[in-house]
């Protein structure tokens, strides 16, 4: 469809209609889920797809899910066809990062939408992805420093969890038998099912009201609309090549200073984003599958284009992505990937923004904390005589902007999960939080200061195992235009009053009464500090 054939009025109306399907799915998922990770922290996303697997709308939840969900639908289109074709009432579950997933805790449910029971071809797909706090594997929380993916947890290839409306109890039993917290998982999966069902109902309702032809027409129209907006943005950038390299501290297994390199070439209204030169995939779990790298690229361009653009696959149309197979930005099986999603994705954003800062200096901030500070604590809760798994990510400093300081103590870029309230977590787990405060002077100096990180100290009230998956402990977030770097983060064990430094990534056994003190990085500063007299 060409621009001229679109009705600008219906285009606007459909934009809201499609967005509302995904948003409503999100409300159902959030409110009916079980685990604090989904309900309190909102670590999930919901989206609507056309028959080809192009994403039409996504509720604005978690950026790292944004660009990666279409690959789930594409995988399902690849697997289920011919005699295996999906039927009305089917729902497919998956988490295999090498088959449409991202990392194992993110379980995705995809449902085809059929106009009626006897339809043979779907009219679209709805899908949601939620981070489950445990999917088995070598450590509680399923975010270990592993050396192969099989240690990270249960791998679920695309299989039908629901066939013609009936849950397959064998699939559910198999999953629940492999996780530490089956009750919670079951509840969360039911919430995911309810969410998709709501999405199906809404899309069908729209179809009855407006007709399938028009729905299809405007699905395509909105993809083209977002593409136009992206092309306008890219055309506004000076043609040229912009390169940036930054590093992950380590892979948790001793390999340090892992480069991620990008070269962005802008030519008229399209961009080539080339990660050639990035490190090969690593032994430790910092590998990103292609879906993650796509999400990071998508996120950065989505930010620069402005607020009010539909979140759909049209965003990627003007962008050619080169990510060498077998590299840290396009890992191959059986590389472990738990941290690719949560840590490497942040560094990919850092290099993308670092490159684009050269083209758009006033609109790109200095580096933000560049990590999600993942911490998982698991063990046995004597109070309830059950296993517990607590997963948290911690905010930090944001990079300063060309006209203002960076925000302190908040999540940046690829995540926006909420914290677990202290009064909720102490009720649910044998843990006690002793401090939760802004980490003073951790933001980088500059004409505008980087935001400060957070200090969060948690005491375990029982022996427990803790997994840390954190970065920017060795190499700080960069400043821009002469601004100083932010402070590195620190992980500290406080045992009997004594502070012992901990590595950025690793697993350790805590004793009852031990305190885990997380001090998260500050953001980079912007502009030379002496360029204003006093601020």
């Amino acid at each position, binding site marked *: 469809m060409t621009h001229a054939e679109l009705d600008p*009025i219906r285009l606007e109306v459909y934009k809201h209609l499609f967005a509302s399907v995904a948003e409503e799915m999100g409300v159902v998922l959030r409110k009916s889920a079980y685990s604090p990770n989904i309900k309190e922290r909102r670590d999930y996303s919901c989206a609507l797809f056309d028959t080809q697997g192009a994403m039409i709308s996504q509720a604005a939840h978690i950026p790292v899910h944004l660009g990666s969900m279409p690959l789930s639908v594409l995988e399902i289109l690849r697997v289920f066809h011919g005699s295996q074709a999906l039927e009305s009432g089917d729902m497919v579950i998956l988490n295999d990062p090498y088959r449409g997933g991202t990392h194992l805790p993110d379980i995705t449910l995809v449902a085809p939408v059929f106009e009626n029971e006897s339809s043979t071809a779907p009219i679209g797909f709805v899908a949601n992805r939620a981070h489950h706090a445990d999917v088995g594997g070598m450590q509680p929380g399923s975010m270990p420093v592993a050396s192969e993916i099989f240690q990270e947890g249960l791998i679920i290839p695309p299989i039908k969890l629901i066939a013609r409306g009936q849950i397959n109890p064998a699939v559910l039993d198999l999953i629940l038998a492999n996780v530490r917290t089956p009750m919670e998982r079951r509840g969360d999966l039911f919430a995911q099912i309810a969410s998709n069902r709501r999405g199906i109902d809404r899309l069908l309702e729209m179809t009855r009201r407006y007709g399938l032809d028009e729905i299809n027409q405007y699905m395509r129209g909105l993809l083209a609309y977002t593409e136009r*907006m992206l092309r306008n943005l890219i055309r506004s950038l000076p043609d040229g090549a912009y390169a940036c390299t930054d590093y992950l501290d380590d892979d948790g297994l001793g390999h340090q200073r892992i480069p991620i390199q990008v070269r962005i070439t802008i030519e008229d209204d399209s961009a080539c984003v080339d990660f050639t030169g990035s490190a090969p995939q690593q032994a430790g779990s910092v590998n990103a599958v292609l879906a993650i790298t796509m999400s990071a690229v998508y996120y950065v361009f989505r930010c620069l284009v402005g607020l009010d653009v539909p979140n759909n696959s049209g965003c990627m149309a003007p962008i050619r992505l080169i990510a060498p197979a077998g590299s840290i930005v396009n890992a191959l099986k059986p590389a472990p990937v738990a941290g690719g999603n949560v840590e490497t994705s942040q560094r990919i954003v850092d290099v993308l923004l670092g490159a684009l800062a050269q083209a758009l200096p006033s609109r*790109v901030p200095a580096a933000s904390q560049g990590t999600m500070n993942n911490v998982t604590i698991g063990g046995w809760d004597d109070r309830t005589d059950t296993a517990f798994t607590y997963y948290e990510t911690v905010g930090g400093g944001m990079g300063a902007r060309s006209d203002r300081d960076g925000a302190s103590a908040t999540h940046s870029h690829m995540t926006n999960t909420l914290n677990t309230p202290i009064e909720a977590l102490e009720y649910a787990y044998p843990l006690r939080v002793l401090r939760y405060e802004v980490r003073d002077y951790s933001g980088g100096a500059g004409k505008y200061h980087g935001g400060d990180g957070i200090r969060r100290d948690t005491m375990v009230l029982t022996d427990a195992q803790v997994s840390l998956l954190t970065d920017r402990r060795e190499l700080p977030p960069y400043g821009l235009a002469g601004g100083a770097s932010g402070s590195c983060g620190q992980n500290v064990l406080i045992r009997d009053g004594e502070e012992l430094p901990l590595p950025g990534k690793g697993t350790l056994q805590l004793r009852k009464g031990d305190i885990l003190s997380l001090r998260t990085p500050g953001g980079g500063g912007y502009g030379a500090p002496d360029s204003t007299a006093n601020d």
Partner: protein
Amino acid sequence: MPSCAGLPQQVSCWRVNMAKLSIGIDIGGTFTDFVVHDPAADALRSFKLPTTPHDPSVAVLEGLASILKPDSTARIIHGSTVATNALLERKGVATALITTRGFRDVLQIGRQNRPQLYDLFADPPTPLVKRDWRYEVDERVDAQGNVLIALQDAQVDGLAAQLRLQGIASVAICLLFSFLHPEHEQRIANVLRRGGFFVSASHEVLPQHREYERTSTTVINAYVSPILDRYLANLETAIHSVALKSSVDLRIMQSNGGIISPAEARSNGVHCIMSGPAGGVVGALTVARAAQPPGAEVKIISFDMGGTSTDVSLCEGDIQTTSEASVGGFPIRIPIIDIHTVGAGGGSIAAVDAGGALRVGPQSAGADPGPACYGHSDTPTVTDANVVLGRLPGAYFLGGRMPLDEARAWHAIGELGARIGLSATETALGIVAIANAHMERALRVISVERGYDPRDFTLVSIGGAGGLHAAELARRVGIRSVLIPPFASTLSAYGMLAADVVKDYGITVMLPGNIDAVTLATQFQPLVDRCMHEALAEDVGPENIVIQQSLDMRYHGQSYELNIAFSPDYRTAFEAAHARAYGYHRPDVATEIVNLRVRAIGRVAKPPLQTRNASHGDSQPALLETRQVMFDRQLNVPFYRGELLQPGHALHGPAIIVRNDTTVLLNSGDNAVIDAHRNIIITVPTDGSNEATP
């Protein structure tokens, strides 16, 4: 009418003495509205004065001076934006916060999320208490309410002096788990109150878990209450100087749709943040209730389309409140009327974006410069689109007091259309369709998405701009009946006259969901006693107090709760509510009772709505003229003068009713009657004749 017989001496029954004037006053951004019931004349009248933003009491007193006579007795119910503005404009008092050691930054960190995912320049709101004014004390209570670190007097002794040195006027106290063990907060509060500070303590304001939301609510209360206190003190003094011999009884509207005494409001300012919108919904509910046969359950969706935004709220039997509201980016977790707002109103600006889509809102032309047809700009808006379509003839606007510049509206819409290759009328139809789509979405959010069937509800249009859109929106969401009350634009002030005394209490208990109802009733008792006591203190007789008990419940392991009326069979009620809200339930899974809630409603007598007998006459005298109006095609449409329509008159769409306060559009197939209260009741066909025009 309430009776005072048999009551103890000290409890005087606050009844509506029918010799008393009843005056509802709502201060809005542009106008201050008055609705007056005079029992002597058995008349209800309303008027508006321009709001005086520098001191809102000026307009209030001017209005009162015109109503009160030296010997009047009056009951005044007042809703005001004083607390709201203090919060939104950050003009509250110098406020300190006292927290458990290690947690003073909870207020700043919030839930550690950023407000916009894809905006690198958007920041979380700056906390209301700056860091230097957040104090920590050594104390700690655990999740079971056990004291781990006892608060020492030495921690508290020096505080007052420190705060005074900083020029602090007001103090919020929020300690971890204080809802389980309030004693530490109480001791600090006692010392500071003796020291002359205004104190807002979290165990009093919101004794519920989730420390950030509780802190935020407690801080807002500390920040705005002294402002409201000062305003009310001035107002009370001034009222007595205006009406020296008058006996005036003042009540304040709250965000939960109920009223409280000024004394209560002055220490609980956070309860008054949404008083104006709450008045509107109570007003809508009251007129809808009066329009139905007695005893029938009232199910309405109130629809308040203003200049910048549109508020919608669903009521099933009674108004609904939410504990998940946010104002100005700050969570407020006390029960507040559940209103959903979208950025589409009469003044919403239409524009074409870089991708070639026609946009409407959220930017608004406001009242100044206003829509193009106001004559001060060339900005095309929803109101201009209605002018172009012939639905809002310039000569009739506000009863002819403010003629609209139709040519300017045509020009503005025409220019916009030229950019996307559409005629002015096509563009205008598009603007109305997009604005309707925004408002339709809001109606769906509060109804269909929450498991309510819109066909069971009546859409009550309040505010001036809604009359042109209400019937069309009803059609789009499947609502069959629309009610437009006779004083649509001052309904909020009327709602204040009709509001009951409402007291809400909730406390976090974390009990297993299999606890028997008798035990639970014992747990409720202290709350019920407190609620009853405070309702009696509002001068309501005990026979007029209704106590509602409810539970916030969830399945074990969930972290959002559903509010369930307390009954012996509460577990079954929870399952049903869960199934309705989320499409499934799990009777095999254990449940938890998170919060107990008690609401005391003190029924006060309401000024009766005027009733007139049906006229069998013809509506012809009200017919003004027939004009061309644009729908999907041009139609000849009769225009009626609303003030001349009599009860019993029936109209058939297409038709337009012009009134001084609003203009009402009937589409083809709509039928309207004027009822005994002069409401316009529109019946909208739901036979599928509404062709899908998004």
